[in-house]
């Protein structure tokens, strides 16, 4: 008689382990599906990113016709309000790798994420095969795209704005179907 009870309890013991595990998995799934505060990349603006700035508010930097201004950043090394000027035929590279000019210490940034450069009198933003994408006015770009003053660039938790101080080229003269879709 005792043997039967012993066998029964031995199996209940093992069974309870798995009842627990299944219940745990169920609850965790529910947690992942519905209860997710945080974890999303653009948490920066909520945490007090800089307000809208326009190119006119930022003092022109000598020798530069355009640049990138940081609006908000998840990386303490990249302060909101910092301006990175683009000089002549240079290229501003963005990424997490140490050789980049703008170092993005953001978990969603790739080592070599994107590049910003001037070509044919226009300013271009190009994604360099990043994993989580480069967003121009909240649309992911997949080929080099021309920038206009005030365009917002987002990489992971870092948002930047393209600012332009001199206008050799009309800002309406742009290519890239994404932009037109956005502007309607």
């Amino acid at each position, binding site marked *: 008689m005792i043997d039967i009870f012993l066998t029964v309890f031995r199996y209940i013991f093992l069974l309870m382990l798995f*009842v627990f595990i299944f219940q*745990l998995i169920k609850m965790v799934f529910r947690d992942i599906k519905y209860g997710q505060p945080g974890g999303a990349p653009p948490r920066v603006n909520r945490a007090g990113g800089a307000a809208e700035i326009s190119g006119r508010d930022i003092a022109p930097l000598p020798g530069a016709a355009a640049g990138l201004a940081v609006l908000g950043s998840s990386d303490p090394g990249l302060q909101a309000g910092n301006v990175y000027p683009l000089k002549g035929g240079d290229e501003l590279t963005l990424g997490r790798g140490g050789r980049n000019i703008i170092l993005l*210490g953001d978990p969603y940034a790739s080592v070599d994420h994107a590049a910003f450069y001037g070509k044919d009198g226009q300013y271009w933003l190009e994604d360099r095969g990043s994993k989580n994408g480069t967003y121009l006015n909240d649309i992911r770009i997949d080929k080099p795209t021309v920038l206009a003053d005030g365009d917002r660039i987002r990489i992971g938790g870092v948002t930047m704005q393209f600012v332009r101080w001199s206008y050799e080229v009309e800002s309406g003269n742009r290519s890239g179907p994404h932009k037109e879709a956005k502007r309607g």
Partner: protein
Amino acid sequence: MVIRESGRGNEIKLLVLAGLYLAAGAAAAYLWAGGDPRPYVIGASAPALAFLLAAFLFQALRFKADPFLLPVVAVLSYTSLIMLYRINQFYAVRQFIWVLAGLTLMFLTTRLFTNYRRLSDYKYIYGLMGAVALIIPIFFGTEEGGAKSWLNFGAFHLQPSEFVKILVVLFLASFMSENRMVLARDTVTVRGISLPGPRSWGPLLGMWGISLLLLVFQRDLGTALIYFGTFLAMVYVATARMLYIGVGLVLFMGGGTFSYFLFGHVRQRVDIWLLNPYNFIDLGDRAYNQAYQIVQSLFAIGAGGLTGTGLGGGYPLFIPAVHTDFIFSAITEEMGLLGGVGIIILYVFFIFRGFKIALESRDDFSKLLAAGLTALMGFQSFTIIAGVTKLLPLTGVTLPFISYGGSSLLANFIILGMLMNISHEANTHE
């Protein structure tokens, strides 16, 4: 917010289920061993109620930590109590006290170090304390199970390296969060390939040196492996550069090969692992003990089959040190492949939640601390489970929350408390 509040509800529900698991185990143990029923009732109800009390206190204090960590640890501790009772009642009684002490310590950690960030201010103090605590056993330590890492205080033995683990992770987390940008930017370009520069090499080599010292002077293979693995994981979290991992692995393999040829105890373990361990049994020297252990462990795991021999139905006492390093074999023998896999699933869950906490926290120190503590737990459980199943050479470390031993259990409960603090912090500012 509603979902966060119900998190504690989940925790309590899961703890009730865990309590039923413990009750079933205690009932089986009573039917198997017999005797006075009262110790079984106390032995099962006290830990179950203590865990539930902790959950209710968290609810009352509006503690917003991850609700799944505590139940997972509860089931691991309950498994420990049942298995130890079955192996040797003396160990079970002591473990019972250690579990309650650990739980208290965990609760105190969540109360006293809620503002854990200020811990990052004293990093060089930890560095120093850790170094001293590691060096002391080399001179005053006693040897147990081939590792000279114990301090004998008469009534109880203390293994400082269990606590030093936490200090090492705290030190590394504060050091790296302070120097993260330096580490990530520091590069030397050689023929177009960017390599980490000299400022990054210093800490890497330093940590490698500490691991080797542990290996040489304390003969504590497992701890050396865990320290170095945790360090590499944290470097990767800080810099996201695979190159460090590659360099670290090369260094590790270099150190491993070096010690294989230089130290008898390392060579022995690797030989037992690579060659057929059954061959060593007839040799009759020290190698015999370790080979015998592994062979008995494999027999035990094999005897378990799918659902095991049932609690009390196997012969786990044939394995030397079954209550500490080899407890996983005993679990697999008596609860079968299902029981063993169940335990592994629980560890995986713990690690998953730990990394999730690291992802959710918002500053570098918290991220590195959570990731480091989780990596530590992961490496430790992997190392010993791989050791007793002969996937890797055997290195004597404890199975977190399950192996018998006060130092290890208390240290692991402190880690649990720290992870819950980081999780609370991350969820508070949503």
